[in-house]
């Protein structure tokens, strides 16, 4: 009975180690994006594209209007920012459709949105 004791505690220790490893594994697994993404139905995409385009123009024009009022250059910035806003809207649509997430800026091709995904790719 007593000579089994160290064996048992050894076993328990291993068990604990195994459980810790499993938990840490779970955490790492958790970092792996399953990419729960936005809905991809036709209607959903259409409405999202429409919102992005309209919002782009609206925000651009509004910023231009504010700049004009501030600098007294009406309608220079209004016109300029209107078009830049439209391009920003298109850029957002392109980003959305090309599955790059909503991140601003350009990516190198291997970068993914969640950092852990990159490690996974590097591992391959």
């Amino acid at each position, binding site marked *: 009975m007593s000579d089994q004791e160290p064996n048992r505690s050894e076993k328990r220790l291993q068990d604990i180690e195994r459980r810790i490893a499993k938990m840490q594994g779970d955490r790492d697994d958790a*970092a792996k994006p399953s990419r*729960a993404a936005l*809905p991809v139905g036709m209607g959903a995409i259409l409405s999202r594209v429409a919102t992005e385009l309209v919002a782009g123009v609206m*925000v651009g024009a509004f910023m231009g209007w504010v700049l004009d009022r501030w600098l007294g250059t009406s309608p220079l910035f209004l016109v300029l*920012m209107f078009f830049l806003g439209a391009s920003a809207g298109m850029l957002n649509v392109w980003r959305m459709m090309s599955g790059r997430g*909503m991140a601003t*800026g350009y990516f190198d091709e291997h970068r993914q949105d*969640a950092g*852990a995904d990159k490690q996974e790719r590097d591992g391959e």
Partner: protein
Amino acid sequence: MASEGMHSPVEQFEIKRFIEFSAGGYDISFTNSSLFMLLAMVVGGTFLTVAMSKREMVPGRLQGAAEMMYEFVADMVRSNVGNDGRAYFPFVFTLFVFLLFGNMLGLIPYSYTFTSQIIVTFAMAAFVFVGVTIVGLVKHGLHFFSFFVPQGAPKVLIPFLIVIEVISYFVRPVSLSVRLFANMLAGHTMLKVFAGLAVMISGAGGIAMTGSLLPLAALIGLTGLEVLVAALQAYVFTILTCMYLNDALHLH
């Protein structure tokens, strides 16, 4: 439309003041909108508390529903933000529950949908936007602004591209709020239009009354659709918040 005591389909969006308040020239009355925000908070909180009060090993229906919501949002944060997103989970979960219950309560007849007001959704989107920007600034300092500088673009184009990037960054709160608001507004208006049609046709009397069955049938289908939209838009708002948070936490 208002003849024969008919209700206008947009009457449901009217703000009614229950308790009048004003401070510093601002109208801060307790309105039907505030009431339903409060209700969304109370009902959401009560639901989660009651559902989780037993803490059974094998969850019952209520507990199952609450755990499903929790895991759903947890998975969303995990997959879109990664492990650093854990710190922001409480906020994201609260946001989701608030929006979900707000949208769902709004579907109950005689209730009020506070997400159908652009100012409400815009205030929430602006809060997310400012919060995410602050998180990015705190985490990365001034390096955060490199976010707006496209890499590998020709030098001549960079000033233009920076302006475009900045605009596309500022578009976020607008598109985020407009999306939720427009969906709720359109859906609820459509419901009322079809309901009004059914009532109007049934007013014709006689055999013509059977014609009202058609919009009534459509209404049942639409109500189901609206339940879907209510859940979906809460989800979309939340997942976009996660994506923005991810951008701020992990700059490229």
